[in-house]
C-alpha cells in the first residue's frame, strides 16, 4: 500500500501542533533541551555553538522541514534534529571541500562513513578529551565511557571492568548529574 502523501493542510496542522507543543514545554524540559544541545555541540567546530544548534532545530521543527513522528515527544524529536544537524554540518563541510560522501546515511557516524578528515578528527579528539576531562578522577566513569565508545552494552561494560550492577548504576547517575550540572549552568554562548 502506498503511504498517504501529506497534503498542505496536514503540514500546516502539524506545524501549528508543533508550535503549540513548543509553547507548552515546561521549564524543566527546556533545561533538558539545553543540556542536550550542550552535549551535542561536542564535536562541532568552535564557530558552531550549542545555542545555534538548538535554535536551528526549533526553526526546522516550526517551518515544517522536519515533522514529528507520532508517539515521539517534542524533546526527543528536537534532540533527533540536533543530532542530524550536527551530522549534516560535517557532511556539508566535506562537500564544500570536494570530498563526496557516498554513505547515504543521515544521522550519526557509521562504520561505512568515510574516515573523518584531519580537521574533523582534531575536533573529535578535542571533544573526546573534553568528555574525558569532565569525568576525570572517576575511574568507573572513565571505564564506562571507554565501554560506550567501544559500543559495549551495559552488561558487557560491567563484565569487562568488574563493576557490580549497583556500581554501574550509581556511576551512570553521577555521570548524568555532572552532565546536567554542566549542561544547564548559565553561560552566554
Amino acid at each position: 500500500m502506498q503511504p498517504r502523501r501529506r497534503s498542505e493542510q496536514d503540514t500546516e496542522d502539524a506545524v501549528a501542533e508543533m508550535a503549540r507543543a513548543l509553547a507548552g514545554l515546561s521549564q524543566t524540559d527546556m533545561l533538558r533541551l539545553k543540556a542536550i544541545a550542550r552535549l551535542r555541540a561536542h564535536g562541532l567546530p568552535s564557530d558552531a555553538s550549542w545555542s545555534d544548534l538548538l535554535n536551528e532545530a526549533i526553526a526546522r521543527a516550526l517551518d515544517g522541514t522536519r515533522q514529528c513522528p507520532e508517539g515521539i515527544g517534542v524533546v526527543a524529536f528536537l534532540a533527533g534534529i540536533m543530532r542530524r544537524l550536527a551530522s549534516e554540518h560535517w557532511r556539508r563541510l566535506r562537500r564544500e571541500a570536494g570530498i563526496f560522501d557516498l554513505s547515504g546515511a543521515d544521522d550519526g557516524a557509521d562504520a561505512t562513513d568515510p574516515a573523518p578528515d584531519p580537521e574533523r578528527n582534531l575536533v573529535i579528539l578535542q571533544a573526546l578529551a573534553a568528555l574525558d576531562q569532565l569525568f576525570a578522577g572517576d575511574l568507573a566513569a572513565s571505564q564506562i565511557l571507554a565501554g560506550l565508545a567501544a559500543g559495549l552494552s551495559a552488561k558487557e561494560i560491567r563484565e569487562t571492568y568488574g563493576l557490580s550492577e549497583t556500581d554501574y548504576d550509581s556511576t551512570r547517575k553521577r555521570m548524568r548529574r555532572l552532565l546536567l550540572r554542566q549542561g544547564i549552568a548559565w553561560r552566554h554562548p
Partner: protein
Amino acid sequence: MKTIRSDLALSRILDALEADLLAVSADEIQAVAAETGMSAKALLSDSLGFMKIPSPLEGEVGDAEHRRVGGMVQPSRRDRKGGDSTPHPDLRSDLPLKGGGA
C-alpha cells in the same frame, strides 16, 4: 588491541549520554537547577531566542552585546544595513565645527 574510529567512538558516547538526559526525571533536573542557586528562568535566558526572557545581565553596563528586545538578540550596530540607523549623538563630534575651529 582493537582500534576504534574516533568519530564512531564520539557518536556512540554522545548517543548514550543523550539517552540518559532524555530519560532523566523532572525531579532530578529541578534538583540540579536548585543547586546552581539560579531560577530556571535565569538558567534559560541564554538558550532560546524565541522566549521572552530577559538576560540576567540586562541593564548592566557593557551589556549592549547581550541586550534582547522581545526575546530576540538585536543586531549589532556594525551589522545593520544603511538607512535603518539613526546617527549616534557621539558622531556629531566628527562634523566640521561652525567657524572652522583650529
